[in-house]
């Protein structure tokens, strides 16, 4: 009953999406506010119905209704409640339902909070949202229905893939989808602008908060996925240049570029055409990511060919939306008026440079990810494009970008003073040089690359600090005045400083982890003692333990430093009896400052020993603190704009207007 209700709710949502995809457009064409306002109600109702559908699937999973295929294949009655819930999106059908839920959520948000948008713009935006939503509702209903029943319900389910039974991976997909799907808003705004043939700085002001919100979630989602891989996969890697990761990195790079170009458009009314194109590309890359991950084309081109229904359907959606939007862009872009002028050395110029490097980096990831697929389809030859390729091509692109980052905020709009900016960044430059010297001395020779990279990272962080110091006039004015100026500083200024510092922080972590990590691989028996990276580790015991739906072997290591016992680390290896004996490694992590000691277990040996892998990862946590700082900067910036979201008027006047409505 619940399954059928969920299914029916989704069908109703499809119906609403169909209405929403053309009625508001007719309204806009005829200038009929009533018809245009239909979009508002349908968008809100759509969200209600998709939410109901999603709630139905969650209920089915929680109550372990194994008469539903989706629950049978991905759940087990003994599974902990939290994973029964998160298991909803731990599979293809459920995750697509989450995708449309978030899409409907964003549509609903635009409908609910878009009162200050021009009526026809809102109508257009919501109509485009409805096209996307309609396409994906159809996709789910035709190829990936999560509500299908089994004629003879089995007694027990097959359980969720054990690696997915982890809190990190439970939160990762919703975050990532909030990012992916969030970019649909900027896409819809771009298409609406092209259809209306009108675009101005106010447009950018409306789009920027949505883009920023999507970007924050995508940043956190990617970071979380990376941390999950780090502690769950058992060998301490945190980025593999896997196509699935690249699929999320591409929209992030394009979205980051979009944030910066929309800034130019908002402040200076320039780069309009480019911003529109970036909006389209960013969401197109999100769709591409969905296609790559959901079609199975990554596992193998042949897997895609042997069961093509889903893949071909998403490919069709992809072609229609990307092809259609780019054609519209080609036809209409020339009508958009060029905006303000600026000198090459200016804030705008710096942001354009940022866009050049970010889009090139994005294109590099794009070609590296798709080239093997394309080559295999075209010639049948198989090649691999992996981490070494990306490190070689992607890395160098980020060096000039990072050098430019501190300069951007120092330059004035329209016409900047590079020499003056360099003078003001002198302190940051000196800090960077000191960092290079220190890192070099500490590493006692070795590759010069790592100390230089550390210097670059310090330059970026120090540049962000210098920016704040300059703006508040610290050291030049009495402290009280600086403090007042700091409080008066727009949140967006704080936001960009934090976000920029975040990249530097992440880079420090990346360089330290990859250059100076140490590793021990060996077989240990209980009571074996090994010195490692300055610590003494002793394997105290090996024992077996029973979990809710698994058995695990737990090793207890006591870790001491200079004879003083620090902690006991208990890495384990879980064996999921419910899933055909599949096993996962649960690494043990000991955090010291921002560095970590990492132990993961391998197999037991015949003579009672166990294979262990122990890593010392210096400053590794900075890799994820960086993105968290970036997201925090984004939130600050977002809070700055909250009162002005789409509101060119002061907030109070706007309230009065709303009251009058």
């Amino acid at each position, binding site marked *: 009953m619940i399954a059928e209700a969920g299914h029916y709710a989704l069908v109703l949502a499809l119906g609403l999406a169909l209405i929403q995809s053309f009625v508001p457009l007719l309204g806009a064409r005829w200038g009929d506010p009533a018809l245009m306002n239909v979009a508002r109600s349908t968008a809100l109702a759509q969200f209600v119905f998709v939410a109901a559908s999603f709630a139905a699937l969650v209920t089915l999973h929680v109550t372990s209704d194994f008469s539903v295929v989706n629950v049978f294949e991905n759940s087990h009655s003994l599974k902990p409640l939290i994973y029964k819930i998160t298991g909803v999106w731990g599979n293809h059908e459920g995750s697509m339902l989450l995708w449309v839920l978030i899409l409907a959520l964003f549509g609903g948000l635009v409908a609910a909070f878009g009162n200050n948008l021009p009526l026809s713009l809102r109508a257009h935006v919501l109509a485009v949202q409805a096209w996307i939503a309609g396409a994906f509702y159809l996709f789910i209903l035709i190829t990936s229905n999560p509500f299908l029943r089994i004629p003879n319900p089995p007694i027990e389910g097959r359980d969720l893939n054990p690696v997915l039974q982890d809190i990190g991976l439970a939160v990762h997909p919703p975050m990532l989808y909030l990012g992916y799907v969030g970019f649909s808003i900027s896409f819809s705004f771009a298409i609406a602008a092209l259809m209306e043939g009108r675009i101005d700085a106010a447009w950018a002001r409306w789009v920027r908060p949505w883009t920023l919100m999507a970007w924050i979630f995508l940043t956190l989602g990617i970071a979380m996925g990376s941390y999950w891989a780090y502690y769950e996969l058992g060998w301490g890697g945190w980025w593999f240049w896997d196509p699935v990761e690249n699929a999320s990195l591409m929209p992030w790079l394009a979205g980051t570029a979009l944030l910066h170009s929309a800034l130019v458009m908002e402040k200076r009314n320039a780069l309009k055409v480019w911003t529109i194109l970036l909006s389209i590309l960013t969401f197109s890359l999100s769709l591409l990511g969905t296609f790559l991950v959901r079609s199975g084309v990554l596992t193998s081109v042949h897997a895609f060919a042997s069961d093509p229904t889903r893949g071909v359907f998403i490919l069709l959606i992809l072609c229609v939306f990307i092809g259609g939007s780019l054609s519209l862009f080609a036809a209409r872009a020339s009508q958009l008026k060029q905006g303000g002028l600026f000198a090459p050395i200016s804030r705008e110029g710096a942001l354009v440079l940022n866009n050049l490097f970010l889009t090139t980096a994005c294109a590099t990831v794009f070609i590296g990810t798709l080239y093997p697929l394309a080559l295999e389809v075209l010639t049948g030859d198989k090649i*691999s*494009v992996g*981490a070494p390729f990306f490190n070689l091509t992607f890395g160098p692109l980020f060096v000039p970008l990072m050098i430019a980052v501190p300069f951007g905020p120092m330059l004035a709009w329209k016409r900047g003073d590079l020499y003056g900016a360099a003078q003001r960044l002198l302190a940051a430059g000196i800090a960077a040089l000191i960092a290079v010297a220190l890192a070099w001395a500490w590493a006692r020779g070795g590759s010069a690359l790592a100390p230089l990279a550390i210097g670059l990272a310090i330059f970026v962080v120090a540049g962000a600090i210098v920016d704040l110091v300059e703006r508040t006039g610290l050291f030049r004015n009495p402290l009280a005045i600086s403090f007042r100026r700091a409080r008066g500083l727009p949140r967006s200024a704080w936001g960009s400083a934090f976000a920029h510092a975040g990249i530097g922080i992440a880079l420090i972590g990346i360089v330290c982890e990859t250059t100076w990590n140490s590793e021990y691989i060996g077989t240990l028996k209980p009571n074996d003692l090994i010195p490692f990276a300055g610590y003494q580790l002793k394997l105290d015991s090996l024992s077996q333990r029973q979990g809710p739906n698994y058995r695990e072997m737990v090793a207890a290591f006591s870790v001491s430093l200079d004879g003083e016992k620090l902690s006991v680390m208990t890495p384990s290896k879980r064996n999921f009896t419910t899933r055909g004996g599949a096993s996962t490694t649960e690494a043990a992590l000991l955090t010291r400052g921002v560095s970590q000691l990492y132990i993961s277990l391998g197999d037991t040996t015949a003579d009672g020993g166990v294979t262990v892998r122990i890593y010392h990862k210096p400053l590794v946590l900075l890799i994820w603190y960086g993105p968290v700082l970036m997201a925090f900067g984004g939130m600050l910036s977002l809070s700055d704009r909250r009162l002005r979201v789409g509101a060119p008027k002061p907030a109070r006047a706007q309230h009065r207007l709303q009251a009058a409505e």
Partner: protein
Amino acid sequence: MKRILVAACFLAVLGLSPARAVLPDEVMSDPAQEARARDMSRELRCMVCQNQSIDDSEAPLARDLRLLVRERIAAGDSDSQVIDFLVARYGEFVLLKPRFERQTLALWLVPPLLLLGGGLALWMHVRRRSKAGAEASGSPLTPDEEARLAALLAGDPPTERR
């Protein structure tokens, strides 16, 4: 068989089997040689896996390849000889960083060309715009506009630099 292989690599990718990459018994006695083996392993693909190097992979095939690499190193092969040997045996697919060849031309050239092309296009755009801008700014202001400008300049300019 193929299905099983696909399934096996899927399981390996998802980390369903415990970490088995580089086992203690594989490690070479000479640290310099072992370091070379590790560096090379990171550039070689485990062919039954999805995007994993043989250094990371737990699949039995990856272990065989790791042992093979070490065998060749012990036999005195240079790095490029080892790589050539593996490519001759397993094809280009084994390399995670494709060689610069006819069929990978686009792969290697697109990023730098895009950067150059983008930079060039920007440069030309800026030149064209600044020329047009110079012409546009040549027109003198009307007396009325001059007066407004003077009034604006006399007033407090906004201090905030944004």
